């Protein structure tokens, strides 16, 4: 089991390196463009990166911290402030927290680039759902209760789909209408990015459901999820950073 956790940690280390590179490229782009949307994109990737770092940290804590109640689930939660933080890190709740913020900023970016303004009802739904997810991530937690964990994964998956399915359709429509090859490539990359990002929590959810039904965890779906993170970042690069305008 610890071998799988170690492989997971290595996998996430690679993702972190890639995410840092993408983040630096976005920051460079922001200094060039000084545009609010570029700042939104930077914030999205910053929060994604923080979420990944917390996930990576959970493996570090399990492998190297030596804190017994982390890896031995039969031991009771000591109920200290430290254990409150540590247990929520190891069960990905902090990752969910930052993911939720990143998804909300993705919604803001999506409305700004593809639409002419906010739909009041949609905005309310997105905000209320986001708050529910944030609260659930940090406060609705019972140690060792995989069902509640799976529900947290489900909330994140639905939130991701809620924002990135419309992002996908808007990108695809733009791809169909654009004539310049560079623009077409960029829009199709963004459409693919949306699919990959939706598939990330979907695969994590399946992995969690397998644990719920008695699996050991770190299944194929866990690694598929991280592969989709990797693909999503590559697609983001081709969608946002790589294209050079002829303007």
């Amino acid at each position, binding site marked *: 089991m610890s071998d799988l956790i170690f492989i997971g940690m290595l996998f996430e280390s690679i993702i972190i390196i890639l995410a840092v590179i993408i983040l630096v490229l976005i920051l460079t*782009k922001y200094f060039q*463009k000084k*545009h*609010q*949307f*570029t700042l939104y*994109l930077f914030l999205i990737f910053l929060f994604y990166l923080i979420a990944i770092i917390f996930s990576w940290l959970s493996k570090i804590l399990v492998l190297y911290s030596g804190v017994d109640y982390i890896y031995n689930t039969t031991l009771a939660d000591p109920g200290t402030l430290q254990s409150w933080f540590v247990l929520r890190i190891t069960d990905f709740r902090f990752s969910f927290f930052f993911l939720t913020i990143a998804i909300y900023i993705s919604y803001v970016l999506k409305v*700004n*680039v*593809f*639409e*002419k303004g906010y739909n009041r009802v949609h905005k309310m739904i997105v905000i209320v759902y986001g708050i529910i997810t944030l609260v659930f991530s940090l406060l609705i937690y019972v140690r060792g209760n995989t069902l509640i964990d799976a529900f947290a994964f489900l909330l994140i998956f639905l939130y991701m789909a809620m924002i990135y399915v419309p992002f996908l359709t*808007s990108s695809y429509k*733009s791809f*169909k*209408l*654009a*004539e310049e090859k*560079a*623009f077409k490539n*960029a829009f199709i990359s963004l459409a693919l990015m949306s699919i990959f990002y939706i598939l990330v929590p979907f695969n994590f959810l399946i992995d969690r459901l397998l644990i719920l039904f008695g699996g050991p965890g770190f299944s194929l779906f866990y690694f598929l999820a991280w592969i989709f993170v990797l693909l999503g970042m590559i697609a983001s690069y081709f969608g*946002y*950073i790589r*294209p*050079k*305008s002829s*303007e």
Partner: protein
Amino acid sequence: MENFFFYFNFVTINLRHFQNIIFIHQLFLVNFVVKVLQDLYIISEGGIVLYHRIFNEKFDVQLFGGLMSALNSFAEELTNEGLSNFELQDKRYTLIRKNDILFVASSSNKIKTKKVIEELQSIVNHFFELYPKEILETWEGDVAIFLDFEKDIENSLEGTIKKFQKAFW
């Protein structure tokens, strides 16, 4: 008194025609910015060109309108469906008829027919969605009703590309 009514009707009809032109010009802009459609004609059932927008006027517009209407009527006689498109050198003319009004648009023949039809259909739909037949018949010339359409222009693909260019590309 009779002369007054004649003059009043003349002014009203011309005012409406002028406002129609403004409106249709706005409609055209939506598609012009996505660089699919080039010239646009809106032709009445009798072949009179109600509105036209041409980049390089080479022929009599009214003659062209009459010809289009006649060709379409002839095609309708033959096929019951009318003429959908035809090509002249590197230009393709696409036709859509709705509510007895013929919409004709030219485009490069390199652009897929399906895309051109979609664009022209969106002009037709916008036209009748925002200003249904009943409204156009009783329209009193309130220019403010065009504001919604201007927002649509902002929401065009060109707008999206511009936003991406400014922020990322």
